[in-house]
């Protein structure tokens, strides 16, 4: 327990320490400075451990830390919406874990989340049960398993493209290494062979081989990422009124969501995954951040898998199947036309800008032709975006679907809707369309019904907020 802060701080400061070591190389004191810095960093970590205290009172959880500047963060227990327990490899080796407590507001900017690092695993589980069920963990707790990830779902992994990010990161790192550290790639035997091969082979063969190699690498990296993140994925429902998600091969993670704070679910289908009949399910709930890499924020209820299973899980979690299967109302011809003008118009503007730059810089024309490919590609994109567009009011839920590269069908309970924003640009006004956003404290904070006819938008808003609009409708 004691060791986690110094070691974690050291690991976090590692890039800086390496930099210090390299910078000091010139003066010959690199190693000494690096050692001094390491001691300071480890000392700061130890200090943080000794100065951090937390306690749970009947009404609040309080966290106090800092030596020179004491800071107390407190949250009301009835504000706790979710508890997230993460154990990185280092934590697991020491039998520890990190607990992040999500409250209604703490997940927003400027409000530090309540984080307790270095709790023993059993203590973390007890704390979670105390916080979410407001009772000690000793009492029996019925658990229903909703999903255990079948190993065969790994077949969807190559289509998640999560490996593309890894590939880009590696490519970027290699580029930096070559350009800044002046490493000559020709000095490495295998790279030298590859370069020789590429120079001698005809151009079309080079292109085919490079594309195939990239696809193979992205597929392998995506599969590795899938296994690392979702190994042992389990979704369970507990009689105390919470949903638990546990997952992870090396970094173990457990997320608990209070069901009474669940405002709906989202089916998300990235283009490639959709092409092979896959989807994933995300929770719409307060206290858990959605956004950059939803799996990082812990709102994932089902990792990429068969679409039918994603619908089943979403329906089971929300408690209503119809919103996920009901047909949606299309938004009509004018909305479709807007998809085309926007997609084709944007891509043409992009190609024109590229042409101007290419012309000014005197770059070869054929490379511009590759960039200009976005124009013909934007037509099927617009068609798909138009086909995705739809909405419905099913029971107490607002269903809205849009997007092509990532198609999302969001199902939001009307009880979770706070207000509405009705937005229209000059062009939309001429087409008689508006974009309706139902604002919520959960998930993405606002769910958009894009380019819907004005009268229909008013009908939706009036249904979501009964009585509120009556003064404003004429």
């Amino acid at each position, binding site marked *: 327990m004691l060791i986690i802060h110094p070691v974690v701080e050291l690991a976090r400061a590692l890039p800086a320490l390496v930099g210090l070591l390299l910078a000091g190389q010139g003066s010959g004191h690199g190693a000494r400075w690096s050692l001094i810095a390491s001691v300071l960093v480890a000392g700061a970590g130890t200090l943080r451990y000794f100065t951090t205290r937390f306690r749970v009172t009947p009404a609040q959880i309080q966290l106090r830390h800092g030596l020179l500047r004491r800071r107390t963060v407190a949250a009301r227990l009835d*504000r706790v*919406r979710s508890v997230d327990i993460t154990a990185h490899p280092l934590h697991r080796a020491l039998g520890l874990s990190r607990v992040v407590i999500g409250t*209604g*507001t703490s997940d*927003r900017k400027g409000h530090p989340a309540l984080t307790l690092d270095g709790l023993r695993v059993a203590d973390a589980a007890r704390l979670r049960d105390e916080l979410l069920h407001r009772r000690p963990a000793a009492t029996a707790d019925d658990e229903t398993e909703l999903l255990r990830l079948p190993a065969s779902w790994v077949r969807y992994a190559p289509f998640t493209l999560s490996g593309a990010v890894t590939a880009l990161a590696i490519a970027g790192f290699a580029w930096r290494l070559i350009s800044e550290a002046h490493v000559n790639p020709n000095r490495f035997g295998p790279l030298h062979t590859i370069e020789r091969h590429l120079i001698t082979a005809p151009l079309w063969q080079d292109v085919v081989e490079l594309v195939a190699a990239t696809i193979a690498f992205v597929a392998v990296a995506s599969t590795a990422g899938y296994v690392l993140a979702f190994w042992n994925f389990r979704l369970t429902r507990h009689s105390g009124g919470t949903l638990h998600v546990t997952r992870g091969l090396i970094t173990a993670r457990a997320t608990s969501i209070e069901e009474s*704070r669940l405002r709906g679910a989202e089916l998300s289908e990235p283009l490639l995954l959709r092409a092979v009949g896959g989807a994933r399910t995300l929770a719409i709930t*307060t206290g858990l951040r959605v956004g950059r890499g939803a799996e990082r924020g812990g709102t994932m209820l089902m990792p990429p898998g068969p679409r039918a299973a994603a619908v089943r899980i979403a329906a089971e979690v929300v408690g209503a199947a119809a919103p996920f299967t009901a047909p949606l109302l299309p938004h009509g011809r004018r909305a479709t036309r807007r998809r085309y003008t926007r997609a084709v118009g944007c891509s043409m503007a992009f190609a024109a800008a590229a042409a101007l730059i290419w012309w000014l810089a005197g770059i070869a024309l054929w490379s511009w032709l590759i960039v200009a490919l976005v124009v013909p590609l934007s037509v099927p994109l617009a068609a798909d975006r138009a086909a995705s567009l739809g909405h419905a009011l099913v029971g107490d839920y607002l269903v809205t679907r849009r997007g092509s590269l990532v198609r999302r069908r969001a199902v939001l309970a009307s*009880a*979770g*809707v*706070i*207000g*509405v*924003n*009705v*937005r*229209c*640009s*000059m062009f939309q*006004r001429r087409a008689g369309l508006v974009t309706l*956003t139902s*604002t*919520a*404290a*959960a998930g*993405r*904070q*606002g769910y958009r019904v894009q380019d819907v006819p*004005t*009268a229909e938008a*008013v*009908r939706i*808003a*009036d249904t979501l*907020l009964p*009585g*509120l*609009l009556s*003064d*404003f*409708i*004429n």
Partner: protein
Amino acid sequence: MPTLVPPALRAPRYRVHQRAIWLWATRAAAGWIAVLAVEVLVLIVGEHDIAGWHYAVVAATAALALAHVTVMPQWRYRVHRWELTEQAAYTQSGWFVQERRIAPVARIQTVDVHRGPFEQVFRLANVTLTTASAAGPLKIHGLDAATANHIVEDITARIRAADGDAT
């Protein structure tokens, strides 16, 4: 018999203060002057190698600035409106892209009055009503100070009476 006229939202009832036109014009002008200053500086400092299109860029910027400073504030003044009823807060803002926002008064969490340097010069204030959603703060820009204070008192009294914020 059902009506044939589709339901439509009417605009909120009240306009913001007329001085807001001058506020918006001044603020836009300040931004454009900064841009033009940089462009003119480039013209003066980079003595050699000034082509005709450098002057064209400055002239285009000036024309765009003039159009923006004269048209935008008037347009904006016609759009910006607000209204408070027993249950709801309702605002309309923007100019080229317009947005209407409606939130139940019971769900409003905080009421802020903000007066930046320009607002202080023109004796105006901005009121922001936030709900539990990060996507839906209602902003009323360019109110005179008395109206702003009145709104704050009114809403503060009402949210004290309500509970539950749908989080």
